[in-house]
């Protein structure tokens, strides 16, 4: 069934495309069906999942969880394995729910002339890949969907918008950064599988294998020398996807995309993928100082900087985008902390964020459509012209700020609880402070949003249509999201915030701890990991905070936020003194602009276009690669040879030839006219033929002579159309260089030939030819028999070479381009 859901959503993309083409009028009614059907199905699974969760068991996957497996590439441990548990259910519902609302919203948002066929196809493919990601349990399958989210977001971000060129380059930026991260993730997953299964390449790489690991196996993973690279690569993958510093900059750049895209990206897909993976893997990889410290540090950084940037934005979407980065930072902190409270806070936080950010983006879309502006300094008086949107915006802002009655409140409360419940590190206080600060500024951001509602009425330029309230389809999405947020918020208060508690068991690090305490009672939690040797002052601080620390924190955050409101002009007008080199956008642009240039310079260095340089480089690499091993051989294994043995049976006239050949070569090299050069070459050839004769190979000598004659004629033919004297086209220095290279290569080949000639030989095949030539080949000339009989296939091949050469030469000679 899960596989069917994933497959169905994957097919939804082309199906929606086809349907819109065939029945354009029906799209409002047909399109919502695609997310609606799986959404309802999964909704029916909620009770089962919650009931099946066994809070007492060491791993909650055991009960009430759907699991499906289908073979794909067993040799790689890659299979279609899907699992539904509380964590994936939460994400899946967000993904499908948001998709449903956006599909209802989008047709009214886009003006009629925009062709939205492709948009919905991209939206559904994004939905499908994200859904696949959260439902699959095979590590490589997870990665596959992870990549697909990048690709589908690429198209989604670059969907027709106001500034085509910038949007597309931003989409490309997002794709490149997330792909870079996903390569790191792939390496990390491969290493993880490797230390998990060792040499057994075909063991399946399902997540359950990791989860069912015995405690000692888990420790062995975490003690492995590869653990640190695994975690770091893994985190690079997650941080790029979830837009965490220093890879954050692509997210605000995607602002130019249409509102439905932003709403979906921020609330349900893409950026949530990294958080999902962090939560999913924290039981396996988490709990170590490396994991905790890195995540808390990076999370805190993003938490603070994101919200500071958000507070200063005048563009509504910019504000929301940076606020998302900050929120994601807080999720990263929670994933880093580990433990039941943090896990609970994470689960609720993700839902709260989806509800508030999703509705906010959609509402900004309404503003953009009617008021044609997103500038916070311009927009005002919304309550007079768009009362419904105004009301919803107010509620959404309250939820974002985490005021009581909304789910944001519960999330914030749990967030503080999660942080203070975790005793493990110094960074806790760091993140505590940062969370407080971000709450101040979050309230401040909400205040700025709220101001749009009030104030005087915005006047439009003349000639433009009057601002009016948007239609029902553009309101129903935010309305439902906010109702859910309010409902859950109130219910959470009434039910003592226990409704979403089961989620915690999935992401938590130490399930066994649950046995000791009822879920959700952060205050009573013992601190098992607190080291005994900790300073007493620290313990006093903890006791001080323990009772009402959450309430204190919440109170502080509102107070601080309230104070900040008085400094609004100062905050919004001041700019953080950020040096340009730290602006990653500029850095990216710099790199992006310079890489092709540098690459061109570098490539020209090697691939300059001159054949002579190519030959020189090629021969030098021959020398560089072969001579070291030859030198090693000569110096280590070769017995020193006396010159006498080498020259023992060389006869006098042979000396003559041996001396004449180099002279011929020198004549060729130093020849001033073409005729001299040809003669020099001819001499060398003739002498070679003579050598063949002396060593008893008349056939070869004959062949050599014919070749010499032919090339002589050809050369004369060619040189007849060239000037008679050689031009000096190369400098003295290059000629010396080339000469040296040529000499070295010659020396190397000569050396090799001599070495082989001097080594003992195995003459079995040669003797066979000699003895069998007459009886089997019926010929006394062994060379002929070898060519025509023993190795006739070579001859056939050589004839074919001639055939091919003939065809080629025919073309070269006679081809004339027809006009």
């Amino acid at each position, binding site marked *: 069934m899960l596989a069917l859901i994933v497959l169905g959503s994957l097919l939804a993309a082309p199906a929606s495309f086809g349907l819109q083409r065939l029945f354009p009028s029906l799209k409002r009614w047909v399109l919502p069906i695609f997310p609606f059907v799986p959404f309802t199905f999964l909704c029916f699974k909620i009770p089962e999942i919650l009931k099946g969760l066994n809070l007492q068991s060491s791993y909650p996957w055991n009960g009430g969880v759907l699991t499906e497996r289908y073979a794909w590439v067993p*040799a790689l441990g*890659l299979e279609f394995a899907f699992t539904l548990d509380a964590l994936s259910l939460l994400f899946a519902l967000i993904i499908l729910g948001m998709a449903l609302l956006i599909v209802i919203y989008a047709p009214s948002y886009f003006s009629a002339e925009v062709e939205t066929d492709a948009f919905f196809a991209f939206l559904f493919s994004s939905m499908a890949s994200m859904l696949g990601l959260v439902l699959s349990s095979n590590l490589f399958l997870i990665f596959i969907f992870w990549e697909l989210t990048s690709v589908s977001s690429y198209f989604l971000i670059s969907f027709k918008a106001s500034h085509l060129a910038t949007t*597309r380059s931003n989409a490309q930026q997002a794709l490149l950064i997330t792909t870079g991260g996903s390569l790191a993730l792939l390496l990390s997953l491969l290493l993880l*599988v*490797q230390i998990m299964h060792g040499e057994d390449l075909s063991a399946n790489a399902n997540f359950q294998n990791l989860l069912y690991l015995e405690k000692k196996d888990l420790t062995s993973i975490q003690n492995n020398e590869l653990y640190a690279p695994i975690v770091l690569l893994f985190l690079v993958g997650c941080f790029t996807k979830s837009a965490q510093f220093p890879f954050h900059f692509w997210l605000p750049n995607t602002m130019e995309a249409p509102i439905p895209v932003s709403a979906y990206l921020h609330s349900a897909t893409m950026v949530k993928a990294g958080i999902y993976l962090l939560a999913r893997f924290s039981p396996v990889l988490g709990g170590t100082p490396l994991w905790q410290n890195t995540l808390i540090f990076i999370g805190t950084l993003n938490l603070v900087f994101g919200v500071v940037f958000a507070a200063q934005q005048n563009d509504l979407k910019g504000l929301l985008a940076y606020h998302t980065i900050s929120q994601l930072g807080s999720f990263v902190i929670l994933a880093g902390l580990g433990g039941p409270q943090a896990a609970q806070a994470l689960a609720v936080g993700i839902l709260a964020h989806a509800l508030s950010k999703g509705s906010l983006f959609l509402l900004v879309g309404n503003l953009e459509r009617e008021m044609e502006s997103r500038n916070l300094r311009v927009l005002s008086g919304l309550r007079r012209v768009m009362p419904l949107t105004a009301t919803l915006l107010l509620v959404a802002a309250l939820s974002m700020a985490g005021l009581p009655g909304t789910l944001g409140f519960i999330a914030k409360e749990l967030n503080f609880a999660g942080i203070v419940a975790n005793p493990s590190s110094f960074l806790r206080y760091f993140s505590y402070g940062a969370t407080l600060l971000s709450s101040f500024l979050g309230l401040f951001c909400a205040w700025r949003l709220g101001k749009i509602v009030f104030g005087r009425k915005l006047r439009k330029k003349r000639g433009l249509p009057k601002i009016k309230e948007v239609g029902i389809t553009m309101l129903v999405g935010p309305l439902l999201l906010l109702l859910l947020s309010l409902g859950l918020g109130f219910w959470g208060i009434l039910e003592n915030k226990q409704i979403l508690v089961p989620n915690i068991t999935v992401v938590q690090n130490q399930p066994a701890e649950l046995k000791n305490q009822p879920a959700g009672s952060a205050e009573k939690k013992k601190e098992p990991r607190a080291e005994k040797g900790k300073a007493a002052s620290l313990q006093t601080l903890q006791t001080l905070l323990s009772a009402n620390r959450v309430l204190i924190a919440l109170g502080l955050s509102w107070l601080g936020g309230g104070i900040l409101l008085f400094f609004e002009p100062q905050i919004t007008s001041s700019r953080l003194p950020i040096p340009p080199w730290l602006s990653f956008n500029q850095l990216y642009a710099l790199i992006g602009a310079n890489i092709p240039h540098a690459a061109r310079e*570098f*490539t020209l260095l*090697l691939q300059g276009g001159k054949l002579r340089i190519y030959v020189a480089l090629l021969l030098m690499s*021959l020398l560089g690669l072969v001579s070291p091993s030859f030198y090693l051989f000569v110096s280590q294994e070769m017995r020193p040879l006396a010159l006498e043995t080498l020259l023992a049976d060389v006869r006098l006239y042979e000396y003559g030839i041996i001396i004449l050949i180099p002279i011929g070569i020198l004549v060729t090299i130093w020849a001033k006219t073409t005729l001299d050069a040809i003669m020099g070459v001819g001499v060398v050839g003739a002498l070679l033929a003579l050598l063949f004769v002396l060593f008893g190979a008349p056939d070869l000598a004959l062949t050599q002579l014919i070749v010499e004659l032919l090339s002589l004629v050809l050369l004369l033919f060619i040189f007849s159309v060239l000037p008679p004297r050689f031009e000096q086209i190369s400098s003295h220095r290059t000629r010396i260089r080339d000469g040296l290279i040529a000499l070295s290569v010659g020396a190397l080949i000569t050396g090799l030939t001599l070495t082989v000639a001097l080594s003992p030989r195995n003459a079995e095949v040669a003797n066979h030819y000699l003895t069998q030539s007459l009886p089997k080949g019926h010929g006394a000339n062994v060379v002929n028999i070898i060519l025509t009989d023993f190795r006739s296939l*070579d001859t056939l091949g050589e004839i074919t070479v001639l055939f091919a050469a003939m065809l080629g030469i025919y073309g070269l000679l006679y081809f004339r381009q027809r006009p």
Partner: protein
Amino acid sequence: MSNHLFLPILTLLLGSTLATILGRWRRVARGIVLLAISANFLYSSWLGNLIFVSKERQFVRVGTLIAPYGISFIADELSATMLFMTTFLTLLVVIFSFLTSIITEQIEDFFFYPLVLLILLGATGVFLTGDLFNLYVWFEVLLVSSFGLLTLGRKQIQLEGGLKFVELNLIGSALLLVGCGLIYGLVGTLNIGQITQRFQNLNSGLLTVLATLFLVAFSIKAAIFPTYFWLPASYHTPPSVVTALFAGILTKVGMYVFYRVFSLIFYINLVDKLTILLLILACLTMIVGIIGAIAQVSLRRMLSFHIICQTGYILSGLGLANEAGLAAGLFFMLHTMLVKTALLVIGGIAEASFGTDELKKMGGLAAREPLLATFWFLAMLSLAGFPPFSGFIGKLVLLKATLSAKQYLVAGVMAGVSLGTLFSLLKIWNEVFWKTLPKDEPEPAPIKPYTLIPAAILVGSSLLLGLGASVVLASNTLAAKQALDSIGYLSTVLPDSPKK
């Protein structure tokens, strides 16, 4: 004895001869060419299946001579796989050229198709032969016929490119010939199996010297750093159909001999000393290749550098010097053969439509030809290693083998270069397909839908190779196992020799 191993050679010889003689009647010649390649395609699929199922090597001697005195043909899973893929790609490229008019009738009249058959013949000979010198001969067939194709059309740049191509490749052939001579002088045989056997008994540093010599010779053929210069110097010059054919076949034949010779003859040296060298060369090839690709501003030149980059990946599979590495490298090779041909076929269509392959003069093709754009995008994703295409599986197996051989740095280079591949391909995507057509450029000619058929088949095959990876990987693992099993190879080639 399996006499059928001669069939593909005979078919191609006969086909090229007939197509030359009957070249005056284009339809007849085309029919002969199509028939010959299709027959070989069927044969190679049959052969591949035969070996895969029986797990037995196929072997035949030429004439009545017993190996090692005569030449023998031997086919194992590795050669059968390569034969299949090469024939398949040639078939598709030939069909592509039938469907389009990139190859003008005039070029066709100058024996275009017979030369294509001869290229395939050369490759087939290299794949099937069990004799080192015979391998050299088939390489010559390949080289000379590809030189003929490269210069067909006789444009100035073709001649310049052809000169560089042939001269640098001839150096490679000369080195190969020197190597053959040295080996014959040393062990007195040219039979690959017997050379392997005698080398195993000959414990000498000279073998390493020979191995490096062959390394350079094959590097030239396979376009490995630092000997790849002929490739970017020539691949952009001939009609795009020729480049598509070369991209799929030429360097891959070089990679095949790399795999064959270094898994048998020089395996001990490889494991002993050369694996680091091979891995370094592989990494440098990847890096230099991708840098070159990023630097380019015309479609075909960029794709040429991608070819170099990809051979680096394939070489690293061999450099790992174990079964998993070889199998992974082979899978990657099959993948890149498919996808590279696909990209060049699609690029060829675009080039024919615009009349140029300079990126800045092209544009707006995504809106005009959505189908072509889709194919390009999918092929691009495949080459950059995105799932569920063959590129992803290729990257995955190669990374997995590399990591389990503890070559972490190599894995890092692979990953980084794959990002660079995406970066450079996105440039083509942006320039050719997405950006609007520059104002003063002429409108591109409309594309006939049926010319997209080969591209569709190629992209579909890449998808199929990804989804059906388990079967292909099984075959590749068998190929790697057989390639490394020198005793099995010997007992097939020299059944009478004493077994070790």
